[in-house]
């Protein structure tokens, strides 16, 4: 067997000397991207998981021999740059023994090597031509049950990577085309939901089969050398586009500091992420020096997680027009301090990387990209305030459904987050999550059919988007109760932003609302909502009806929910706005109030727009006076920082 360096060198020689015309390149590059998209669709259609089928959390990629992504299709942008470490380790550890063979499929879900957390489960298969390893295919899904200390794959009470369930380190789940049942049992006997795991496993294998079939046919038709040359040119092309775009923007440094308030279940702690982004010519340096140390709880990112979170913003906001592959990465330099929550030390828990520090990193980097865009008018339409960052609530649950089977997974509502405002538009209400922009959330009816919960309400939350000249998109508010036919249900949530908001607006808008979770219980509460009766519409209305209401921190571990208990939250998932709220036209504020995006109180207090509650019309005279009062207050309370010191 050849050594790794020899194999890489051999592949390099194979593609050298290929004379590709621009037209040939365009056609074949398009074929490769079609291939990864089709294979990803196969994964999503076979998987029954709502996280994959509705949330779109599936990746499919073609890699070159050494594992660099040459064409990617992914729904969760976090994974764009996070999987090549798996191939690197397979080559380092398994090439000589036990060997890499045609028909092998390797599995990984080790977050320190690639992916983001243990839920991110990758299968990769080598592609051989004439007995030579020439490429790889990879498929990844978020599989929301890992046999962790709590169901649902992201345990809020985790205090070690060991608490986050099984971690597979490159075992062959398929050898030379045949499934390895003994290897599969390592996982099947470690999860609460083996059927769910196998369905996701089959979905990824289906995607790999589709992709392999297409790639081999393409190589037969056009020659292996030609296809390998197209893969390399893909990366060169993307790198060239990325560098050219950077050159169009002014050199400078932009900084953001973003805070969170919870490091794990029942562990309130103020933590900080510092981002300094420096653009020099065609290079971008993103430095996280000054960020807080590794957290005790699972609010941490391993290095691949932070890289993924950066690319959520870079891929969607800065290089959105650049074809996705490793070439996008080349103009970037990332500096991550050791033993920090953006580069957590070995064995640290990191289950919450995607929903908490990851979204905060993405929001902060995205906002800095927006500020960088101000320096070139050509890109003003691409400016975004922060999308939803660290003010969120993902609900996990486990137990036995009303249909009698065991389950453990998560709700999809956090995908219905607000999007950031631009310089001439509001953010989109419940428009999507930056890291998985194509996601949708399950219908209430579908969710109630499958899951052991009934909804009291699900709506766009009032005052959740950042109040600003251009308003940030609103997030979701909901209330659920356990299904009365479910024998046992437990529920937890991984949220953030109860104290810190987690998302700021840009250029003079207010930060978004704060997350507010409660459980209401007590005799007679459920009976207050007979069929057809009017129901509460927000947490404040609900708590007035409940004899026993308990407020909780942002993140709590799984706890039993009894028949009649109601879990509800307000205030999460909003996004940042743009500009001073006093510059928003009164008619727009009136429309916000009429449509339930803002309260009368917000209109008057922050926007200075007085709306008559009886006629629901703007009182122009009172509005003029109120806005003058706000300016007068600013003049009175505003002091120069240096003079204050």
């Amino acid at each position: 067997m050849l050594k790794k360096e020899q194999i890489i060198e051999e592949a390099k020689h194979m593609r050298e000397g290929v004379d590709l015309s621009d037209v040939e390149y365009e056609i074949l590059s398009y074929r490769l991207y079609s291939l990864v998209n089709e294979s990803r669709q196969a994964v999503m259609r076979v998987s029954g998981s709502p996280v994959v089928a509705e949330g779109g959390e599936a990746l499919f990629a073609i890699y070159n021999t050494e594992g660099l992504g040459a064409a990617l299709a992914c729904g969760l942008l976090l994974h764009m740059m996070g999987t090549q470490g798996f191939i690197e380790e397979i080559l380092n550890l398994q090439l000589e023994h036990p060997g890499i063979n045609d028909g092998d499929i390797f599995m990984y879900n080790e977050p320190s090597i690639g992916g983001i957390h243990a839920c991110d489960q990758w299968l990769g298969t080598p592609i051989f031509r004439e007995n030579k390893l020439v490429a790889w295919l990879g498929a990844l899904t978020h599989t929301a049950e890992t046999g962790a200390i709590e169901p649902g794959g992201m345990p809020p009470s985790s205090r070690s990577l060991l608490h986050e369930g099984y971690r597979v380190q490159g075992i062959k789940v398929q050898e030379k085309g045949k499934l390895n049942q003994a290897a599969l049992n390592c996982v099947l006997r470690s999860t609460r939901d083996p059927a769910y795991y196998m369905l996701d496993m089959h979905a990824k294998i289906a995607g790999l089969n589709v992709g392999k079939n297409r790639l081999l046919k393409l190589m037969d038709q056009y020659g292996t050398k030609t296809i390998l040359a197209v893969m390399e040119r893909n990366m060169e092309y993307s790198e060239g586009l990325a560098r050219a775009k950077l050159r169009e923007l002014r050199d400078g440094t932009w900084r953001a500091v973003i805070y969170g308030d919870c490091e794990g279940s029942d562990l309130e702690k103020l933590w900080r992420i510092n981002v300094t982004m420096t653009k020099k010519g065609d290079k971008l340096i993103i430095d996280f020096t000054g960020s807080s140390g590794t957290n005790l709880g699972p609010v941490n990112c391993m290095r691949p997680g932070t890289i993924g979170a950066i690319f959520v913003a870079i891929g969607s906001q800065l290089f959105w027009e650049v074809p996705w592959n490793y070439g996008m990465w080349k103009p970037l330099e990332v500096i991550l301090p050791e033993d920090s929550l953006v580069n957590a030390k070995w064995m640290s828990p990191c289950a919450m990387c995607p929903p908490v520090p990851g979204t905060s990193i993405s929001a902060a980097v995205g906002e800095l990209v927006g500020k960088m865009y101000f320096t070139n008018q050509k890109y003003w339409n691409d400016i975004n305030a922060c999308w939803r960052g660290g003010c969120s609530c993902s609900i996990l649950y486990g137990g036995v459904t009303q249909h009698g089977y065991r389950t453990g997974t998560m709700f999809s509502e956090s995908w219905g987050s607000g999007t950031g405002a631009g310089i001439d538009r509001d953010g989109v209400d419940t428009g999507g999550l930056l890291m998985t922009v194509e996601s949708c959330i399950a219908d209430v009816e579908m969710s109630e059919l499958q899951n052991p919960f009934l909804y009291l309400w699900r709506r766009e939350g009032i005052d959740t988007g950042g109040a600003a000249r251009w308003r940030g998109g609103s997030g979701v508010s909901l209330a659920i109760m356990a299904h009365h036919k479910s024998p046992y249900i437990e529920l937890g949530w991984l949220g953030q932003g109860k104290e810190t908001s987690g998302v700021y607006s840009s250029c003079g808008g207010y930060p978004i609302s704060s997350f507010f979770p409660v459980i209401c219980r007590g005799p007679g509460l459920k009976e207050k909502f007979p069929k057809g009766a009017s129901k509460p519409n927000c947490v404040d209305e609900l708590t007035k009806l409940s004899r026993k209401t308990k407020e909780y921190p942002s993140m709590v571990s799984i706890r039993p929910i009894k028949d009649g208990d109601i879990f509800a939250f307000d205030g999460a998932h909003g996004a940042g706005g743009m500009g001073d709220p006093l510059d928003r036209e009164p008619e727009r504020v009136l429309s916000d109030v009429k449509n339930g995006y803002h309260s009368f109180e917000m209109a008057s207090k922050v926007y200075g727009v007085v709306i008559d509650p009886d006629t629901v019309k703007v009182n122009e005279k009172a509005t003029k006076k109120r806005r003058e009062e706000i300016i007068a207050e600013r003049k009175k309370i505003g002091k120069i920082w240096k003079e204050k010191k």
Partner: protein
Amino acid sequence: MRIHYYLEIDENKKIRCLKCGKIICDATENYKLHVPQAERDPGEIPGRRPKKPEFATYYEYYCPGCFTMLDVETKPKGTPPVHDIQIKV
């Protein structure tokens, strides 16, 4: 050159308000050190229900000419202003 929704760098390399024309400081400086700033309890804004004031205070920055709000930082009390925009001039 525009650098912010309300700010630009003028031909003399000064940061200037786009709304009222007020010159704030040199382009290399942190404009937030040169403009009126005020602290606000987040609980004053609807939809915010903080229980731990030591975790977050809103810091509002206004243009010294027209008092347009230029930025709102949310951070622990006493934390210095972030130098968020530093264009090479």
